[in-house]
């Protein structure tokens, strides 16, 4: 049982116009086995929340705390956060030319576990995980994200999540740009990880469509850098019908 606790998080970013506060006091608690959908209009700070938790150097935390099972996440380096059990599935994963997917996965697994995985079971695990995500075995020999289609990139993110077995996973707009077949495959992967490892999920999305495939336990509406409203799955249905206009008018 793990808990990610975000308290009064304030985050700024440097822009050509000066320092800008993006997150203005975010409170959120995610436990193992829970799926929290973070929904909101573009520019509301959803991605900033994701990248701040993962430790991207672009963002400065000015106030508040993030802990994982009581440990101060903000004190950790980027790789330490991953080793502690956090995972960020990125919206735009970058290419790392010349580094094969299989080498990358093995290196990451070794780093997370602190020891190299047993070769025989590892090869089997990778093969199985790739089959589940309908990925061609030849994928392993390609450069990381090199020339991947949008759908391939997202499946590759979920592949990593399934193999690295984090405690808490943040999915940053994993659904955007996917056709329905790819969305279904990716969603199956997320549900599988949740069922087998009790993963806690922060599901950041702009659209409600993914919530047909990944059932949220909680829905948080994110507006202007903080949580404007929260509730159960019924809140997503209301958003689907009404959109975000109601929040934007009052913000």
């Amino acid at each position, binding site marked *: 049982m793990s808990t990610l606790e975000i308290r009064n998080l304030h985050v700024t970013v440097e822009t050509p116009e000066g320092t800008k506060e993006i997150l203005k006091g975010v409170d959120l608690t995610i436990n193992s086995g829970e799926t929290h959908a973070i929904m909101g209009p573009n520019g509301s700070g959803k991605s900033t929340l994701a990248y701040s938790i993962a430790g991207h150097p672009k963002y400065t935390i000015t106030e508040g705390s993030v802990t994982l099972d009581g440990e101060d996440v903000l004190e950790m380096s980027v*790789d330490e956060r991953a080793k502690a059990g956090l995972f960020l599935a990125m919206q735009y994963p970058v290419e790392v*030319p010349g580094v094969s997917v299989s080498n990358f996965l093995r290196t*990451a697994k070794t*780093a997370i576990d602190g020891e190299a995985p047993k070769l025989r079971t590892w090869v089997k695990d990778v093969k199985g995980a790739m089959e589940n995500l309908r990925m061609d075995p030849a994928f392993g020999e390609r450069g990381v994200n090199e020339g991947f289609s949008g759908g391939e990139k997202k499946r590759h993110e979920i592949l990593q999540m399934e193999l690295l077995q984090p405690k808490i996973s943040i999915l940053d707009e994993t659904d955007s740009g996917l056709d329905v077949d790819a969305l279904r495959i990716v969603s199956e992967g997320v549900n599988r990880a949740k069922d087998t490892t009790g993963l806690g999920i922060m599901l950041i999305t702009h659209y409600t469509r993914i919530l047909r495939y990944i059932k949220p336990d909680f829905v948080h509406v994110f507006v202007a850098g903080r949580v404007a409203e929260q509730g159960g799955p019924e809140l997503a249905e209301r958003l689907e019908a009404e959109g975000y206009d109601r929040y934007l008018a009052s913000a």
Partner: protein
Amino acid sequence: MTVTDHTQATADAAHSHGIVPDKSRADRVVSFDADVFPVPTGREENWRFSPVRDLRSIFADEPADGHLEWTTSELPAGVALTEVPADDARARTVREPGDRASALAVKHSGGAMALTIAANTVVEEPITIDLRGTGGDVRGHLLVEIGQSAEATVVITRTGTARYSELVSVDLRDNAGLNLVLLQQWDEDAIHAGEVVARLGRDSRLRGTVVTLGGKVVRLNTSAAFAGEGASVDLFGLYFADSGQHQEHQLFVDHAVPKCTSRVTYKGALAGKTAHSVWIGDVLIRAAAEGTDTYELNRNLVLTDGARADSVPNLEIETGEIEGAGHASATGRFDEEQMFYLRSRGISEDQARKLVVRGFFADLIHEIGVPAVEESLLKQIDLEIAHVEEELEHE
């Protein structure tokens, strides 16, 4: 970052790219007479990036006092390494020297060493020649002669230290194949100015790989000229410049006859405040060279602030009847987003840097085609990266 790509360029008689030389590359002087070439000042087109002050002793028209220690692998039947007197050496050199350093290297080398592979000899194992500098000035002249339909791999490794200049003449007879690997693994105070001139006979195949890691100044000019139809040349280069190192690679591919193919692929990493790399790639497609297919590429990865990579591709095309002609040059900073991505998967900063740099060079290393060299190169690149980490810690 700049990228130019003209893979399917169809060009007129006066087509050229990049910094246009004041005249055609074809007009550049070549001569065994060193006096034809004044002492470079650094203002000349072909010396403008070079630290000419460090090359002073190489420009001096004086006998040299030092020598390199030669260690050679056992030579199989059909392969000979012989000393050749000066007159004969000149006659057997495929092209006259193209600059003062090269002309003086021939003049003061006291003859040449000739590695000769007899016609139809196929040498399975790489022939290795280790040249170790023991200090002082050294002038060298080397002939590599591959007989008709012969095939060989030759690995020449330079270590130790010297102020060394050389001319390497590579003669590929019809249908010959040569994989020539030149490794510059000098100590950190070595100065090396070399010229490699290759002539490719009909249907011959040259793979030339240059790896420059060591030395204070390394300046290697490689020229390949096609003398018969149907020949191909692949020139690969890998360099890694640290603080205080100047690594310069100039290339010239001369398409003078029809239906030949050339590929030039050079990649370099730079780290440290005064690291400097220079790449100049000239390709000339003469009017007679119909059906030419050529592409040249240079990529540089700048790992730290203050390093400088100069990259100048030039393409001169005198006929429109070609298969393809293109070039690309790109110099990029070490990518922080790549770093973040890898580290967000638990991979440490040091290891992430290693992965990215190894990845950058990976395809190139696999082109060398000599497993022992490839393996040792991967290790040396790791050492270079470790050195970068030390420098970063000092900052």
